């Protein structure tokens, strides 16, 4: 603690000898920053053991796997495992749906999380603040199975609460489960509802981390609350926002499988608008235990995501190197 406050007092900027740092080879770099590299060793070991070694199993996507020969001994079968996905005639549709839904989700989630975080930070009564935050976290604990039961209870045609209310006002009942356009709203709403607590905690942590002196200085200069939000908080949240969006893009080809699977299930009427890659794969492979076919589409998703994330990261790097993911 002492060191932190001590050095904070003397925040004079020391010009760094960048040139010196840039020279020298790989080994010299390792030696120069050996402590820092050593500090990276635990995580590196972990990821080599728990991620990179099993990753070699990716070859299963190109193999006709059997137990006798094992993962590496099984015969290659080229792109046979990919065949079903691409001849289904839906590969393009579900890929598009996956991307569109994730973009909508990411946008709504980011907007709502930031809004919630900013307003929570403005609240002065501590008990209210704590309570509101805890409440926002509750949906995180409710599984999609339970959500599905509630939504059915609320929206189903015959005795759903919505239709009962409409009935009370002598309005005709609506059939939400067979009408596509409702779901463009229901799905993002549920997604935001589920994750807003999670997201707002992150943004709130970023707000709390902002140096109080900046606010104090602004107040002295006569900035009011609104101005402090728009001029200080929001610009300073940008790095957090960028990193969270980039990380969100890293899941752009996956998606909230449980939500789609539980809520929509096998509903043929909604399927063309709500089918994502994961649900299509699940449906196609239900009842078969084919490791190869299961991992082939995963590989396809990974490659696409890698391309997207490299591109997005490149854009961010052009704008500000330090805010990029890598």
């Amino acid at each position, binding site marked *: 603690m002492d060191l932190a406050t001590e050095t904070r007092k003397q925040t004079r900027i020391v010009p760094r000898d960048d040139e010196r740092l840039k020279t020298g080879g790989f080994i010299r770099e390792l030696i120069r920053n050996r402590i820092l590299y050593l500090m990276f060793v635990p995580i590196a070991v972990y990821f080599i053991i728990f991620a990179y070694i099993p*990753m070699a199993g990716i070859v299963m996507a190109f193999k006709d796997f059997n*137990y*006798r020969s094992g993962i590496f001994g099984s015969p290659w079968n080229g792109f046979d495992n990919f065949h*079903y996905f691409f*001849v289904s005639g839906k590969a393009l549709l579900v890929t598009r749906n996956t991307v569109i839904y994730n973009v909508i989700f990411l946008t709504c989630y980011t907007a709502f999380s930031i809004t919630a975080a900013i307003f929570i930070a403005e609240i002065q009564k501590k008990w209210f603040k704590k309570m509101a935050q805890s409440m926002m976290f509750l949906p995180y604990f409710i599984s999609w199975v339970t959500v599905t039961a509630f939504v059915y209870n609320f929206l189903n*045609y015959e005795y759903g609460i919505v239709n009962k209310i409409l009935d009370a006002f002598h309005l005709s009942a609506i*059939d939400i489960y067979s009408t596509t356009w409702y779901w463009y709203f229901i799905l993002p709403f549920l997604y935001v509802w589920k994750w807003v607590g999670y997201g707002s905690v992150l943004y709130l942590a970023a707000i709390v981390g902002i140096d109080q002196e900046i606010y104090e200085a602004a107040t002295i200069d006569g900035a009011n609350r609104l101005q402090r939000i728009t001029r200080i908080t929001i610009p300073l949240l940008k790095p957090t926002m960028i990193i969270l969006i980039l990380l969100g893009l890293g899941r752009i080809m996956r998606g909230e499988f449980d939500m789609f699977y539980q809520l929509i299930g096998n509903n043929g009427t909604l399927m063309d608008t709500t089918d994502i890659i994961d649900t299509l794969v699940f449906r196609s492979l239900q009842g078969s*235990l084919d490791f190869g076919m299961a991992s082939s589409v995963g590989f396809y998703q990974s490659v696409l995501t890698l391309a997207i994330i490299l591109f997005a990261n490149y854009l961010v790097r052009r704008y500000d190197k330090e805010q990029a993911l890598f």
Partner: protein
Amino acid sequence: MKTIRKKMLPILTLMLVLSVILSACSKNDNKASNSPSESAKATDSASPSASESASAPADDKPDNSKEVKLVGYLLGEAPKGMPDVLSALNVKLKADINATLELNYIGWGDVASKYPLILASGEDVDFVFAADWNFYVSEATKGAFLPIDSSMLAKYMPKHNAKLPPEAMQAAIVNGKSYMIPTSTPDRKVNAAVVRKDILAKAGLTNVTKFSELEPYFAEIKKDYKDMIPLNLDSQYDLPTPWGYLLQEKIAYPGAPIDSGDPMAVGVSTDNEDPSGKIVSMMDEPFISAEKYATGLMKKWYDAGYVNKNPYANKVRSKDNFCEGKSGVAFGNSIDLQGTLSACAAKGIDVQLIPGLSPTGHAPSNSWLNNGIAIAANSKNPERALQALDLIMEDEAYVNLVYFGIEGKNYAVTADGKLTLPEGTTAENNTYPPDAAGFWFVNKDFFKPWDTWSDSYVELNKKVKDYLLPPTYLGFSFNSESVKSEIANLKNVSTQYASPLFIGVVKDVDAGYATLASKLKAAGIDKVKAEVETQAAAFLAAKGK
């Protein structure tokens, strides 16, 4: 961009190197994984010699001098009372064959992920539950199980061998070998729909035998029972069921296409009672007109409000809320409807059962493979495992122990030879509920009836035997290995385009089937049909021998 590329290059190289190293070391472990299967091969090749020696009288008794521990995997969850039952079981097994048992369970919801992994890993496992509905064919193809021949059966499972007809082992053949020991008593069940007698009477119906005759019953419910939906279907089980009943009025439909066995799918099928066993696409005659009849009627009912509008989102089965008055019909089979019938009896609701029967009044008997057990390919003690299973499956004392628990604690026998719960034990606090321990492959002829079974249930079970008729393809299991891409797409197309036809939520029945037919064609139904025909012909030829 240039700087990125510069920086990426070493990383990518590093990763490449890493993955090469990794695959190299995993190759080593792969060798390790090979060794158990090699030993399996060894036992495989040893078995003929074992059978030769079996014929020699001196060697008739298997050598059990070394004590072994057997590890078995079953489906479901271990009941709370398992440790007690297991120790009682182990006392018996130790005395009889010098072996003890360790049981593990694969949770009901995790079968698809965990079952193949356990078999693939070569973990300590001697026997596993196996069934045609539980990936038997695909796992056998991948080499998960040890092949079982008749001489092994004769030597190590004499009791079971005596009870098991040769067709059963025949049915289990995959690529020329049997990998499973089927139960000697396949389930005897027919699908049945439960309806309420009081409403039937109000609707003026007396003797309903066909499902389509229920229309006035539905109309009566719609008119007078505001809270009840005539057909309140759930997304999993009920959804294709009424359609299936209607289809069965016209043709002996196996309940699911043979190519996938999935009731939600449409594909390649056969008329169960056609002795020539002609394989047809469900988009061709005679199926297509029967299907259109079924969908036409379902559409009529759906439009009249007899079917719940959103079955896809409903997770509560009709048999679970039938007695609560939410559903006009409960769907199930003669085994799983017991709970519904008892609940209704307790509430004083009089019910009638309508079995789902073919035009000739029959239902297909269940496959031999619907419950069974397999020896893992890398079991170290397959002989002892077989002996243990022989006792568990065919010795009455063993059967009662593993299925019903400990007498006096988990079950008791009444004076008139019925099963009951002992004093102080209720269904709720019974630590070893029947059926729950996963031993569904034992000889069920040893079971006594329960004293709680309602009359209509007992009556149904008595009739079941008369309904059952072995279909032409009893014991045929399709090996989808060579057409798995097509099967995947057929399933996918079915859920999207056929499931609306099951519940009748289409504007135009003919147009709906035209779309489905073209989608199925694009998904490769013809190729699958050709493959089914080849395998079916081979099956019939072998059967005729």
